């Protein structure tokens, strides 16, 4: 049973992108085909009692390297996601993917694992990771479904896109110094299907999780009071980044759309030259030549659009999801701090309570029941002192938690920025390269044609001799 709370988040706010250059063609507001995200934005926080959570930051640093050399040469785990297959049961039909792992890490018993996982399993893994490391940035999963036009979950393109995204998801986790050490991750990669099912059933029960969620909601309503400046800065950045990346996503999709429509028209254009050549004698060869050129350019255009769809669009889309993840992470951090602040306030109130000699009802009752007022007051003091001590202990733990959360986030933030830069840079680079390649190929096509034309006139001049 899925424990996640699916929050259908309303589409990211579209900033009106004015048609500043042409005046007509750039009205992106008309792109109402926004996707319905099914996001795994749980409000649950890292419970202190979750079996899979590492106990303290210190031990974590010891186990895994933190930030320094995470590059390829020290890579000791390789994961691939491939081979989608559909499974039909009495209740449902679903797709599973093969997850192949090769590793030299000591915590794994074998060096190779091959398991089959379905999307739900990935969702589960993500949820566990976020639960255990609520302020670490977990790479987003592809969406549950897309309501846009191609609705079929079993459409080939959709499956392929999802497969690639799942592959990336697992590899990002494997690259992450902390997340890749997660027990849940290990189980995900290595357990057989029935083992995984059993494993999933462990952990805090439903009710305790519900309780956490309620607390989280209460805290988020209360809001955090003294957010550190650096997190304010990150918050602002995330807002801006989210806007920009959404716009880029929309623009790129619009480009793909326009390019496809251009291709459609181009496909009709070439044949008209061929048709014309049928009526001509002298011009026939040349017209057929032009038709051929246009046809070849069509092929190149098709390739170019394909590349755009395969390379740039998915990456931009991923980072749109990333932006939402970041917002969730920041919220969770805020909640942790809010809880700490709440407890502090409670402590202050209790102290005030203890230090004031109040003639409260309890005292009155006590005297009615025949208790000695001195004794009653003493009992009250003791009780309050006890409560205060408890509170102080809780606050200490929460303070640790806040510090841990902040450090985790700070550390991961730098890491995330670096990989964001890397990802987007390489995607844009690849696109630019492909475009150069596209134009170069088309150039060659037309230059060849021109060359063939320039040599022909030598035959003509024999006929055209003026006396």
């Amino acid at each position, binding site marked *: 049973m899925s424990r996640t709370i699916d929050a259908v988040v309303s589409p990211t706010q579209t900033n009106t*992108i004015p048609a*500043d*250059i*042409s005046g*007509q*063609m*750039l009205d*992106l507001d008309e792109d109402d085909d926004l996707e319905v995200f099914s996001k795994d934005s749980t409000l649950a926080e890292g419970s202190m009692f979750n079996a899979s959570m590492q106990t303290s930051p210190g031990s974590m640093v010891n186990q895994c390297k933190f930030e320094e050399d995470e590059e390829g040469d020290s890579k000791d785990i390789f994961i691939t996601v491939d081979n989608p297959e559909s499974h039909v049961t009495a209740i449902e039909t679903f797709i599973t993917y093969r997850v192949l792992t090769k590793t030299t890490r000591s915590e794994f018993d074998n060096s190779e694992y091959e398991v089959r996982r379905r999307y739900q399993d990935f969702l589960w893994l993500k949820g566990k990771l976020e639960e255990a490391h609520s302020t670490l940035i977990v790479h987003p999963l592809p969406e549950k479904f897309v309501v846009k036009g191609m609705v079929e979950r079993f459409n080939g393109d959709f499956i392929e896109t999802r497969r690639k995204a799942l592959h990336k998801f697992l590899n990002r986790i494997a690259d992450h110094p902390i997340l890749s050490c997660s027990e849940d991750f290990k189980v995900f990669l290595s357990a057989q299907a029935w083992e995984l099912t059993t494993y999933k059933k462990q952990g805090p029960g439903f009710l305790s999780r519900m309780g956490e969620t309620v607390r989280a909601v209460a805290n988020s309503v209360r809001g955090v009071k003294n957010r550190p400046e650096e997190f304010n800065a990150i918050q602002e950045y995330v807002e*801006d*980044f989210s806007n*920009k990346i959404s*716009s*880029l996503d929309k*623009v790129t999709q*619009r*480009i793909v759309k*326009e*390019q496809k*429509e*251009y291709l*459609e*028209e*181009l496909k*009709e*254009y070439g044949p*008209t*030259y061929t*048709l*014309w050549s*049928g*009526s001509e004698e*002298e*011009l026939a060869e*040349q*017209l057929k030549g*032009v038709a051929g050129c246009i046809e070849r350019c069509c092929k190149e255009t098709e390739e170019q659009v394909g590349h755009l769809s395969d390379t740039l669009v998915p990456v931009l889309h991923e980072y749109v999801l990333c932006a939402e993840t970041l917002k969730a992470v920041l919220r969770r951090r805020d909640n942790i701090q809010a809880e700490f602040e709440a407890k502090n306030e409670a402590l202050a109130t209790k102290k005030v309570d203890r230090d004031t000699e109040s003639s409260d009802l309890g005292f009155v009752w006590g005297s009615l029941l025949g208790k000695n007022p001195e004794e009653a007051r003493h009992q009250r003091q003791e009780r309050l002192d006890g409560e205060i001590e408890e509170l102080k202990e809780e606050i200490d733990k929460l303070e640790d938690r806040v510090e841990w959360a902040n450090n985790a986030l700070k550390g991961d933030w730098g890491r995330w920025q670096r990989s964001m*830069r890397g990802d*987007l*840079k390489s995607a*844009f*680079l690849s696109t*630019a*390269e492909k*475009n*150069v390649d*596209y*134009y*170069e190929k*088309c*150039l060659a096509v*037309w*230059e060849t*044609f*021109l060359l063939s*034309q320039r040599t022909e006139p030598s035959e003509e001049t024999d*006929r*055209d*001799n*003026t*006396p």
Partner: protein
Amino acid sequence: MMADSGPKEVAVIGNTDLTSAELDNNIKNTMVEIEKGTSLLRKMEISVAEAEKRTGKNTVNMQELYTVYLIETRPVDALTEGITPDSLWRRYSEFELLRNYLLVTYPFVVVAPLPEKRAEIVWHKLSADNMDPDFVERRRVGLENFLHRVASHPVLCNDNIFYIFLTEQDKDWKEMVYETGFQAKADSRLKAVNAAFRVKNPDGRFTELKHYSDELQTVLSQLLRVRARVADRLYGVYKVHGNYGRIFSEWSAIEKEMGDGLQSAGHHMDAYAASVDDILEEEEHYADQLKEYLFYTDALRAVCRKHELTQFELEMVALDLTCKKQQKEELVTGTVRTFSLKGMTSKLFGQETAEQREAKLQVLEQQLKEGEEAVKEKNTESDEFVKTAWVDIERFKDQKDRDLKEALISYAVMQISMCKKGIQVWTNAKECFNKM
């Protein structure tokens, strides 16, 4: 296709059906005409230099806004370089009048078309408004082209009306044109359609030409339409990239390391988006070249129609003659082979007297003579027409092949230029992305 004897000639003559003697004769005639013809353009520089808007009262005395075009002419002479050209203003309707006059007066000539009266096959950026400056400019170029076509035509360039159109700001030029009586010479449309249906033996080449011009019209219309749609789409693709420019620029403001790379990449995206305007402007010239030949098909059909009409008239006259001959024969031999009212009445009311017969015979003889004259005349007319028309058609074909070949080459050159621009922009962008 070369004749064995005779000098090699400019591809004006393509008719290999003529005997070599006739070929020689033709060559001499056309050479003279070419000399005469090209002399006009050799002697004069003609240009349509400007366009201006005027207001005036039209024929129904209402105010209207129209455009006039400045025609400048100047003798081509090394010594007279720097002399200010003669100039006068003409409006589009006067060009139309000139062309109609030429069409009627020289029906065997494939007369060059005028540019569009209204912008019809356009893509979305070009307005279909006659007052739009881009449209007016393209029309100016089209009118100049028309004048050059006429001035370089071996026959048309000698026309006096044309010369006065170019050189004398004579308010009565229109009057002069009307006074030629060309409107009366014009064949009615009905006559022409009728002839087209009923003609029995048109020259096969003209029938073929008619089919060709129909095909060419269809295919060029389609080509121009699709080209306009392709241009539309291309415009869209380029312009959307302009959004990258803006967003990169905004994004660079919040990034540290990536900022510079993004910012400069953005500029290149703007440049890319802007470059499409020039690209498509150039392509419009190509489209205009095709459009000229699209409109030429009307002129081709006009010549074919004239042939059908001439041929039909010849056939009618010949038929009439045959009839008359038959009538004479019947009268002479006294046999009534064909059913006629006369025959019936004579059967009913008795034969004619000898004198009556004699009188009739005489009338018939006279008619026969006239008929034979008419047939001879029509025959000559028809032959003349076929001959001169075919010469011009061959001239036109060569002109068309040359022009369109050049147009296709220039189209390829345009595509190459567009690709080169694309390569440059995206290479620059790549550099910028590298710096991210």
